[in-house]
């Protein structure tokens, strides 16, 4: 696997200020149990760093093993089109057992989206290209699994527990 990741652009889904001390990029899959397990850890890490962390999420749906992952990713993009990507991102990770089309429409309603529009876009695969662009950037650097983390653009291969991630990010943030 190539250890460097494509730079963060305005097209990415970003939480945190551009001038943050450290940037963490995650390639994730909404149906991946490991990503689901990492979700609360990442939330805690984000809270620990506050404005010192810029968190970036990129789609990397593993279509072979997770049949609903691509649709979930596209629904999250439909939410992004209505300005609610992170709400949908959190909801999907918290409801990984309900990612079929009807459930996705229900999630859209729950977070206050125009559910009919989101469902139309999902059926029309309006955002498939956007999801595929993220996935392609992951494949380009040799990604095989999720979640994959990059700190300051460099692959993080350490443990995915909170303490280890916080320590690694802090170390990267303090590096000259």
């Amino acid at each position, binding site marked *: 696997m190539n250890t460097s990741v494509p730079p963060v652009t305005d097209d990415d889904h970003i939480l945190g200020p551009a001038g943050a*001390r*450290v940037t963490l990029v995650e390639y994730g899959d909404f149906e991946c149990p490991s990503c689901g397990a990492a979700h609360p850890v990442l939330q*805690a*890490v984000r*809270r*620990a*760093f*506050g*404005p*010192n*962390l810029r968190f970036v999420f990129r789609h990397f749906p593993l279509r072979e093993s997770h049949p609903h992952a691509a649709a979930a990713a596209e629904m999250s993009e439909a939410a992004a089109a209505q300005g609610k990507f992170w709400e949908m991102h959190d909801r999907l990770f918290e409801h990984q057992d309900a990612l079929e089309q009807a459930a996705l429409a229900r999630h859209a309603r729950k977070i206050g989206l125009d559910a009919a529009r989101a469902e139309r876009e999902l059926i029309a695969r309006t955002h498939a290209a956007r999801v595929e662009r993220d996935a392609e950037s992951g494949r380009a650097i040799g990604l095989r699994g999720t979640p994959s983390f990059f700190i300051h653009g460099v692959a993080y291969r350490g443990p995915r527990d*909170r*303490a280890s991630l*916080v*320590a690694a*990010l*802090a*170390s990267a*943030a*303090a*590096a*000259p």
Partner: protein
Amino acid sequence: MAKKVTETAEPVGTRRLGRHTIIRLAIYYLMVGALLLLVTGIFPKQPMTQGEVAPTEMAEALDWLRWRLVALPGGSPRWLDACVQMLGALLLVLPMAFTYIRTRTRLKYDHSIIQTIIVLPIVVTAILVVVQDSLALAFSLAGIVAAVRFRNDLKESGDAVYIFGSIGIGFATGIHALGVASALSAAFVLVELVLWKLNLGGEFDDTFRRLCMPGGADLAAPPHSAGDVPVAPAGNGRKRASEELEGDARAVLLKIYVLEAAAARPAIERVLVRDAKQWAATGVEGDGASKVLEYRVRARKSVGIEGLRDHLLVEGAPHVIAADEVEPAQRL
């Protein structure tokens, strides 16, 4: 390799000793002194001789009072004498019990010590009244005490001082030295309160400055950790010794990642003083690019740990990188 420095610090000034407390203690001692003087005067130990003339000197007033008030030509009976001495012991040990409660935290407090130090001098007094000058009784007592074994771990090593103080008062009253017992009680309470107030020995930096640098020289680099600057800004948040917060379920362990400990610490502690109800510095880790300052913190309800952490990140900038709450499983 990461190094860890443990601190148990509490700045001077956070231990409040009100003026009312001191006044009440002084009044108490005056009243007890007067009472004991009167009671010991009324119930003399030695027989009085009748037919003496009325006293002309103040020093003879008590003898005259004894003769006028007490119709006990053979002196007060032994049981009455014992009661007077035991009453003296009880009255003189009560301020010590008060001092114990005042200077102990909820965690360090041991209720059995309170009962022990109150009852012990009474028992010791009674024993000494029984033994008096009898060598045979003294040997018997030693034999009995040797046969009975007590093993009890004290919660605090300092509690032993209270036990000894209590025995001392019992001894003094047991040999009718109420003056000595009073002096012991007053001196004990005074010294104990002063030591507690100053927290002498509780914090290395402070003790070092008080004892080794009386001229007030700046303690620039105490020999415990590089870049670890003792700072205790004034405020409402109580800085506590680390072990005092360990058992507090409402306190969390915060790991604060900083660029430079010395620069970050004042800002961090300013926030803690304001936003924490109680807090304690528990250590410093790491000697690489970043350092980790560990604090055990009980946040104010109005702020919450999340709010406190946000304030640390914002007000601690640019030195504070992250503030992570350590999960219980990680504390092992």
